[in-house]
């Protein structure tokens, strides 16, 4: 005990020391996560708005890219592509959309579209908070909200094309309890989309980040140049292009002709132009996207330098394979256009088509390899879109950077020709069609071409021009509706057979919706 008293101080020292070490730890429970941005303080700065608006585009891109939805829904059904081995793709092509393949279940699940829509709703509800930041001016605010509304209209239109009647909401539903939403009719939704787009079109610029004398639009949008943005965010013409498509989808060709006129008359203001075939098919051309590519009227880019290279979300994933001039380890493509279809679509009577014709530089003349390679083999390879690994690499590393392009000038002008034909302005239709045919070096159509034959020829031109761009199925629907001569198809239009079934998972989570009648 003697020792104990003499060392009392030491004892206290050590004991207190250890107690002190931990006494302050109590305050250390407030650790912020570095991996997320929390609610507090969000929507209060210029950066928040920027990351928010980019998030909308990113989610939209994800919705179209995931499972190659843009092509699975748009290109395959009753289209020009055939599947070689993939039973799931074959099921889509032959319209058996309820077949038991995982891919079909995934595509028929619309969650990712609603994620983008929910993000738009939230953005519109909350972004006004960013006005607290003096850098986030009224001009930014108006432009961003206009974009979010336009994007939301685009998403709703895109979904109506796939599923018809769908749940609809313009609220993020936050603070609620994830209550099941019921179905809204497709017409109501398209009416909403039309009115939204009409309202915001004027609030969108022809070009971003340009000097605006009226000072309506920010001059240096989020510190990036006009070349940087190109037409990647939605422009005024994009809004009109969408309006035209919504009208055409509803069979309202008068409005379609009016809206397409805006594009036809103003496209130079958006630096938009015709795309020569050489640019269209170049690995560093139209589909490579990136900055300074104004020709994508509505497009979603995957920039290699920014780490946005992916495997999914590109038609190349399905169409590319080894060819004589482009080595790839994949021997055969998943989908291809067979030779008889090619021959039928590009008849020699049209003249020497830039897209599929003869190159007379050589004797004997060689076939162009703009759209197809390996034509002489059993399975030709569709290579119109081939942006492999940034477009610089050979095909040994099959990752892709091509943009998902919703529309471009040619597409809108063909829609305009379609509208003219539908409205009986056949001369205008022929003229416009011939202009476009001229761009592809094929002969003008006969001046006598009219009625359903003219309509058919316009749609044939669309097939040639837009092959692989996710239009084919929607074109089939519009053409059949326009011609109204196919009873089976008419029945399908009536009972919802032109739409996709709704995924089991979606149905099981929402008791207010039922499977589309056709697929029950």
């Amino acid at each position: 005990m003697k020792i104990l008293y003499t060392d009392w101080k030491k004892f206290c020292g050590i004991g207190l020391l250890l107690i002190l070490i931990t006494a302050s730890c109590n305050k250390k429970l407030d650790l912020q996560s570095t991996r997320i941005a929390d609610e507090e303080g969000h929507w209060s700065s210029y950066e928040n708005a920027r990351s928010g608006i980019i998030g909308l585009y990113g989610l939209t891109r994800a919705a179209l890219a995931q499972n190659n939805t843009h092509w699975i829904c748009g290109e395959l059904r009753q289209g020009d592509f055939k599947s070689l081995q993939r039973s799931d793709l074959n099921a889509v092509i032959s319209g058996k959309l309820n077949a038991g393949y995982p891919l079909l279940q995934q595509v028929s699940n619309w969650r990712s579209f609603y994620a983008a829509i929910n993000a738009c709703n939230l953005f519109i509800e909350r972004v006004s908070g960013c006005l607290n930041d003096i850098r986030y001016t009224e001009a930014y605010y108006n432009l961003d909200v206009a974009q979010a509304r336009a994007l939301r209209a685009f998403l709703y239109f895109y979904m109506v094309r796939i599923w018809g009647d769908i749940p609809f909401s313009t609220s993020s539903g936050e603070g609620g309890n994830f209550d099941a939403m019921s179905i809204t009719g497709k017409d109501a939704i398209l009416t909403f989309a039309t009115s939204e787009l009409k309202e915001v079109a004027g609030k969108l610029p022809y070009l971003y980040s340009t000097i605006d004398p009226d000072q309506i639009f920010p001059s240096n949008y989020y510190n990036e140049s006009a070349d940087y943005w190109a037409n990647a965010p939605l422009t005024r013409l994009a809004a009109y292009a969408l309006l035209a498509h919504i009208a055409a989808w509803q069979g309202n060709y008068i409005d379609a002709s009016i809206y397409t006129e805006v594009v036809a008359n103003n496209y130079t203001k958006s630096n938009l132009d015709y795309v020569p075939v050489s640019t269209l098919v170049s690995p560093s051309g139209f589909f490579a996207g990136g900055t300074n590519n104004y020709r994508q009227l509505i497009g979603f880019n995957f920039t290699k330098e920014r780490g946005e290279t992916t495997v999914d979300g590109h038609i190349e994933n399905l169409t590319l394979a080894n060819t004589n001039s482009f080595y790839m380890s994949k021997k055969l493509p998943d989908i291809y256009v067979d030779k008889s279809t090619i021959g039928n679509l590009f008849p020699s009577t049209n003249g020497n088509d830039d897209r599929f014709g003869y190159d007379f530089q050589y004797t004997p003349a060689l076939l162009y390899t703009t759209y197809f390679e390996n034509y002489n083999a059993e399975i030709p390879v569709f290579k119109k879109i081939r942006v492999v690994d940034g477009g610089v690499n050979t095909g040994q590393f099959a990752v892709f950077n091509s943009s998902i392009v919703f529309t471009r000038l040619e597409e809108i002008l063909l829609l305009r020709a379609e509208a003219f034909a539908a409205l009986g302005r056949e001369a205008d239709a022929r003229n416009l069609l011939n202009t476009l045919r001229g761009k592809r070096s094929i002969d003008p159509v006969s001046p006598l071409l009219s009625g359903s034959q003219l309509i058919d020829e316009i749609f044939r031109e669309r097939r040639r021009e837009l092959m692989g761009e996710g239009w084919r199925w929607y074109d089939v629907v519009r053409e059949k509706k326009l011609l109204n001569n196919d009873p089976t198809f008419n029945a399908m239009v009536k009972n919802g057979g032109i739409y996709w079934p709704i995924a089991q998972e979606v149905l099981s989570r929402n008791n207010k919706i039922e499977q589309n009648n056709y697929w029950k």
Partner: protein
Amino acid sequence: MRIKRFLRLEGFLLFVCFMTALGRLHAQDSTATDSEQDSLITNANKESEFGYEPAKIPVRFKKTAINAVPMNLITNQPYISVAQMLKGNAAGVYVQEPSGEPGTLTNILIHGAGAPLLSNRELYDQQAVVYIDGIPQITRNPFVYDIQKYDFNPIGSATDVLAILNQNNIESIEVINDPVRLASLGPLASKGAIWVTTTPAVPRNIGIAVNSYFGVVPSPNVSVTNAAYENDFRRPFYNQFGNASRRLNYPAFLRDSTNADYYGPSNWTDLYYENTPIYSADASVTAGTGRATLRGFVSALKNANSADKTSINRYNAALSMNVVPYEWLSFSTKIDYNWLSRKRNRNITDRLAEIRYTPDLTNPLTPNKNLYGAYLSAFNGALDNNVNHVLNGYLATAIKFGNFNYQGRIALNYGEEFRDAFWPTVLNEGTNFVSNYFGANQRLDLSNILSYKLDVDANNSITIYGGQHYYKDDYKYNYAYAYNGPNDFIKINVVDYDASQADYLQSKGFIPYFFPSMMSTSLTSFDGNAVWDLGNKLKAHVLVRRDGSSTMQLGYKWFTGYGGSLDWDIKETLLKDQDKFSTLYINGGWSRLGKTYSDDRFSSGPQYRADLGWGNEPTLGSINGIAGLSRPYSTGWVGYEIPWQYVDNFNIGVGAGMAHDKLKVVLNAYNRDDKNGLFAMPVPVEYGYNSAYKTGLVVNNKGVDISIDATISAAASHKMGWVLNANLNYNQNKLKALPGGVNEVVIGRNKFVVGERIDQFWVFENQGTFSGTSDIPQKNGVTFNYQGVPFQIGDAKWRDVNSDNVINNDDKVLKGNYLPKMSGGLGSTLSYKALSLDFQFYFALGRKVLNQYASKRLDFINTEVANDINSIKEITYWEKKMDLTGYPMYNPWSDVVPYRLEQDIFLDDASYAKLRTVSLGFDFSKMPGQASNVFKRSMIYITGTNLATFTKFKGDDPELATYNGLYTGNALPMPRSVILGFRLSF
């Protein structure tokens, strides 16, 4: 950062105190006699070997705690991880090794799982915590999976950081599942705890020990196949259902029967399986007398599998020291460093999972040795370095002051992980791939415990403990990968580190994808407990604790846990004069203990994150390089008001010892409710969210643990000794509630119904084949169909549970379970004079797996054309892992996918029992007439492992399934090994 500085400062101060104490000790060394000193250190150490111990409950049996691993069995076994040592050796612990690859991750579940194992994250949250010398070991946080496309393995070395213990440096491994003891350990131990004590530096251990073994893992006999086999397998399908176009698409590698590459000899096994040496050597020195002892331990080890040249190397050094400068003051310290390096498998799946890219898989590897050899030679130019460093250290002090006792400790557990991978162009379609990973996990652990013992009289005492703990966990990783480097010789991305240069940190020739991430969490606890001891007859224990965690939201930071237990020694109280029972007791306890979240993202409520990717591209976060943020649509909505999860644990046990404790039986019944669980509930997808995290999951696990330890005959000079240890756990789990009062929920391939088990498979019931058109029912003119696709001849006949003429998810039933209902082990030691023979069985019964291997082989049409990660054919494609005859013949081209995995023909009984080891030893020091031997022990032994498996399962090994019961056939087989070793101590 502050905490590190803080640690440095305080650590330094403590170190100074420690050195002062040492100096003090030196000065007075000669004052006490040796025997006095011996007793001093022994007593001191009882109180504070590590400065931190779970609440004490009475030691039931005089010599051993019964839920401890019998060390004599495992010391002669070539096992390297805690999980392997526990396997079959302790009641209530279920260990499943999903692969036989040395050093891979292994799962330890105590008393089942408290939540459905939907992903690796849930699996991580259900793992028991391992304490090594009282330091809860930090393991890799599952947040690394966030950036992964496939979660077969975590990025990084994927080495089991619990593979750091050498049997010869372990004093004991104990399983803690007593409610009050767990509660005294705190939230980290809410899923049960494994309490490992390394051999302490105490006088009884003084001496030198050298142990070593050397052995071989012989290559197994496997039956191999070639293309002819596969061709014969597929031909009937083509004969019955093939048409011209289907025949046209016959796979290229099977098409040409003269192609010797595929149809030739199948001798790849010569290169894949090899006799592989394994070894281990360790030495320890324990020295000191009286008031200071010191122990040093070093070891080196190689463990290997004969398959695919996989192995792990481990070096370890540990130093521990105890100092008792005064009667009332003691210090102990330990530092232990481990280096682990692993040679991983060359599976294509694992490689492509990291590369995130699937090349064309049309032509598989050939079974031909020469071609396979050429393929393997490409790995000469590859890099695959996986290194882990694990450091454990503590400095503890105990101070006695009258009836007060103070224990304080600073401990640190730090692990680093490195992986450098490079795969040259030839392995990957002309594109090379490089990835580098650095990860660090650190746990700082500070604790103070003060106790006061009030002796009312000789048979009545009350001890009160008050404790305070602080844990700070830091997880961090930096991961970068790049494709298409300049050539196959530049294997790393060298950058300029000079900030003044224009090319500062710019990569040359690579476009790296870089993912840095870190997470810090902290946990503070205050606990008090009191033990009322009535002379060993009755002991009552109450405990209250308050835990605060940084992973909780404001207003929910703190949780109060409490519990109590009662121990009644019947023998002491009532049967003192009776001879029948040498021990008899009954005890019961209950506790409520909070459970923290392993992810810090729940702490802030609604949030935003980069979520612009999708399933196959999880890391996409920008458009044109500008980062975008959104709500966490794919990972799930996180709201406010998330309370603590907690565990209500109840246990009642009876222990009996008979014939002087030669037969010891312990029976424990438990009931555990994991309550308030946070669960990602599916919500209507029209809000964009995959799920919303809601609280209110309740999962119940109840069961019985039985341990038997029987000395059937005690070893004596001319008598055979026989000791049997057996343990058995029977466990039932049940989902008691889902968040929001929902009765059932479907998540992906799983369905959970309140009142049912949480680990069931959700499958169609197969009832045969549609062999004729008349077989296919018609109802109201509609053909029996699969979600609208009419069934045809050659399709599977699934039971239409709800009789609506349509087969869809509503017709799936819950069947089978992947966690075993019964698991345990049986060990035995026979000894005669110097000779001993040990064997050990391990079993898991009442468990099923879903046979993805068979499904994939039979569904070859869809598997092959999908060209995704599931289409990969490893070299083991040419091994006959399972007999596939006996499955019905379906049309593999059918749109209903008749060979789909989720049906009960692929649900296989995976119960098994294994003869895990047999060991024969000879201890020279026990030979008659060796009493004066200088050796305390000098033993040689021979051990064989993984000797036999008894099972109905048709695949290669029923244990080799994923944690959620998927048998893929891709796992490396469990190694069978034979080792020869010696153990010397003097």
